[in-house]
């Protein structure tokens, strides 16, 4: 049973927006929202993925008039919204395996098309299920331009299995498989991949990145994605208090800092070219982003700040240069 939505005014960046024209309010600000992932699930306190997935699916439900099917990779989202016979899903939902969500979604979309139905399909997974084990299936779905919106909820590691490194884990971050041992503890530099850029290389009709910090932006991107047919990719940064080690009430703040320091560029790309990148409103030094997170604590444990902080700053600066999102200095 779906919960009754009640709101409590919080900050202007979140679900509130009471001062806006009703037409410009977020889907989340509406008591009519689908609540695609309803309350009572088992996500950790402060889970960015739980927020991100509900934001995405509620926006997609509105965009499709509720005519939507979701396919899920194995991972936190799958686990905390079930197990049987309990389910938080208020839309048809299918989980098969860790690495095949994109291909399963292709099959769902094919079946709907052959049956003459207009139902839309979303596939979703975490960064492990997307950038690592599900990468082959995902690239296949991309190059065939199958009519699926694939959403990656990126918390930068295998959090469901106990915080191990994925190819989305940032350099220097401590995980259970990149422990802080030796002079350069944590994840190594010079590794990892950008799935949004790889998706663009497939010349998809629509690729976008977003975070849970900017709800209007996230919902607008989902809504736009649903106006397009073919393979689409949305990459949402979803901080994980468990894996990142930030306070559970700072998940939104972590997302915002990720944007403002430049580690997570927010942009939209059409047919393989960046159409619009969101300028940084208040530029922050990388330290402001790193310090609240225990996974980076070893960088600040000594008498002097670890020189790797400067390397991380350089990577963020490089993002800002590439996407042209530098705000006023």
């Amino acid at each position: 049973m779906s919960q009754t939505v009640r709101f409590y005014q919080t900050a202007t960046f979140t679900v509130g927006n009471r001062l806006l024209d009703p037409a410009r309010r977020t889907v989340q600000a509406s008591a009519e929202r689908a609540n695609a992932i309803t309350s009572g699930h088992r996500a950790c306190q402060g889970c960015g993925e739980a927020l991100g997935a509900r934001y995405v699916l509620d926006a997609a439900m509105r965009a499709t008039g509720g005519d939507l099917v979701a396919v899920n990779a194995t991972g936190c989202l799958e686990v905390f919204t079930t197990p049987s016979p309990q389910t938080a899903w208020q839309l048809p939902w299918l989980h098969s395996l860790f690495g095949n969500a994109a291909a399963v979604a292709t099959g769902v979309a094919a079946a709907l098309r052959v049956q003459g139905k207009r139902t839309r399909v979303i596939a979703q997974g975490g960064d492990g299920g997307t950038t690592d084990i599900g990468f082959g299936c995902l690239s296949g779905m991309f190059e065939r331009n199958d009519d699926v919106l694939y959403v990656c909820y990126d918390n930068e590691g295998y959090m469901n299995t106990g915080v191990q490194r994925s190819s989305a884990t940032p350099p220097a971050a401590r995980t259970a498989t990149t422990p802080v041992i030796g002079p350069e503890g944590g994840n190594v530099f010079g590794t990892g991949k950008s799935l949004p850029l790889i998706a663009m290389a497939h010349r998809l009709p629509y690729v976008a990145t977003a975070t849970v910090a900017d709800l209007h932006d996230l919902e607008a991107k989902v809504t736009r994605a649903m106006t397009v047919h073919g393979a689409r990719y949305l990459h949402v940064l979803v901080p994980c208090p468990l894996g990142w080690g930030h306070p559970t009430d700072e998940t939104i703040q972590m997302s915002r800092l990720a944007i403002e320091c430049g580690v997570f560029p927010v942009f939209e790309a059409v047919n393989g070219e960046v159409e619009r990148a969101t300028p940084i409103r208040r530029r922050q030094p990388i330290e402001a982003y790193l310090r609240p997170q225990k996974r980076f604590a070893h960088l600040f444990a000594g008498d002097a700040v670890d020189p790797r902080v400067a390397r991380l700053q350089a990577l963020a600066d490089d993002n800002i240069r590439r996407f042209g999102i530098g705000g006023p200095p």
Partner: protein
Amino acid sequence: MLKQLECSRAIAETIARCRPQVVCAYPITPQTHIVEALSELVRDGSLSPCEYINVESETSALSVALGASATGARAYTATASQGALHMAEVIYNVAGLGLPVVMTLGNRAVGAPINIWNDHSDAMALKDAGWIQLFARDAQESLDLHVLAFRLAEELSVPVMVCVDGFVLTHSVEPLDVPSQEAVDRFLPPYQPVQVLDPADPVSIGAMVGPEAFTEVRYLAHHKQLQVLTRLPELAAELAQLIGRPSGALLHPYRLDGAETIVVAMGSVTGTIEVAIDELRAAGLAIGAVALCAFRPFPLAALAEALADARRVVVIERNLAPGLGGALASNVRMALRGRAIPVHTVIAGLGGRPVTRAALRPVFESAARDALDDLVFLDLDNAAIDRELARSGERRRSGPAAENLLRDARRPR
């Protein structure tokens, strides 16, 4: 109507008459001709409506079929060997979700060493995944079993693997009768899923199940398979009425009257065995054969009955379970519980080595004299084995065994 056709082409035409709505294809020898022919049938409109999807791996091929089936579409794919193992995780998943996908397995050896030719290693590796496994004994049965497969799969919500010997059957060209569209339509009603992804009635499919119900879920998978033991003969009889020939069964008995020695096998080797048995019968030997069509479910009762008067059983294995013997013989023994008769395992025809009448006859004769070993490797080149064992004993880096054996085989002696 009989028509000179390659078996793979005829399988494709049969599949098309079963009207699958989603077909996914990834090439792997020796099943590739089937999906190639299906791509033609979809492009020229013979099979319509149908979504034909070229995927990037076997994992995706079966995952696409999984998604389509869960959305209420009839789904088909084909694979073999490495491809079947590549998709192994999805094979279990499709069965666990109770999705009636039909898949052809063009039986082929599993590497290393890489080998494209026929044996049953691939099917045996997946025997306990929860799929029904039907083995075709000849090209005509390869066609007909697919029609049965869709009906069984959809009636019981369980996937079916139709095992067709690679090359020996898939690439054989002979007069074949593709079941008529009318017969298939009468036999195969439209797919009515027991669960489906439908926004009007949302369900969550594939959620986690803990210890409190997992055993019961698995039991139900077993229960479904047991139903096949009754339904397969009934449906085969119904299909026989429509196509005018018997095709498909739990097992096919051959000259069991008074047989003291009974040979058990699966697949295309059955034909060779039957010819050998004819010759030995003519020479006065009391010998017969059983060709299993259903390997999963395993027809324990039917096989026990067929073997009731046997004094010994010879199992022709197209696979090797290293460290044990053969998968088929292990299963056959389950049908002989409580009976103290010898069950010989004959490992034969691995990686496409021909299983000849000439090689089988002395084995059967020796079994009839109770002089056959428990485990026999047919046509094994013992001298080559000895030479390689000696080489590897002489020095640590003796090189790749497969290459040594091949070089040895080509050296004039």
